[in-house]
């Protein structure tokens, strides 16, 4: 299934876009994170601590993502 993943801050600058589209091997957060790392080696240094937000909440690796869910990469935060 093709999905959009929103990017912010340094990750968006590294990729040069604020949204990427990709086809993951499975429906879980873990699958999507693996696909992001595979497709975007420029993000590799940040993927170790990266998480996904699904519908505006941090999701665990086993969370299954539905077809209409909003997905965002949560990495390289900098509040404060």
């Amino acid at each position, binding site marked *: 299934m093709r999905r959009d993943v929103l990017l912010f*801050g*340094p990750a968006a600058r590294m990729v040069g876009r604020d949204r990427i589209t990709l086809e993951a091997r499975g429906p879980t957060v873990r699958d999507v994170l693996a696909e992001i790392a595979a497709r975007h080696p420029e993000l590799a240094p940040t993927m170790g601590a990266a998480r996904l937000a699904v519908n505006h909440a941090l999701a665990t690796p086993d969370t299954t993502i539905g077809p209409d869910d909003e997905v965002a990469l949560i990495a390289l*935060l*900098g*509040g*404060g």
Partner: protein
Amino acid sequence: MSRVRVQIVDGPLPREPSSFADARSDADEEVGSRIRFEGIVRGTEGGRTLAAIEYEIYEPMASRQLEAIAREESARDGVRSIEAVHSRGRVAVGEISFTCEVRSRHRAEGIAAISAFIERMKLDAAIWKNPIFAGGR
């Protein structure tokens, strides 16, 4: 009993005491300690001269996270209120991008709550810094 308020505001924040308490006297007689933290944009980042930071905020996720953290930290014994405000968009060097104010019975729980709030925000909240260097990015 503790009160919590979280706000995202466009641009730099004013330097003002909390709206929970008026200027001279605290109406809550249990409050013996007020602690206010102000985060200010520094003039350099990794050795380069900054003009500003542009804060990018993913809403409503960020507000929900800050509210949840404030609610949890305000459950500490003795904490009476937590109020946090974060800038969105451009904040110039020297200006305030974040404030957090904790009112509590004693100083110790106030310091613990404000420290934990800030650490958890930096770790989890969907807020990003985009540095704008002097003379263009």
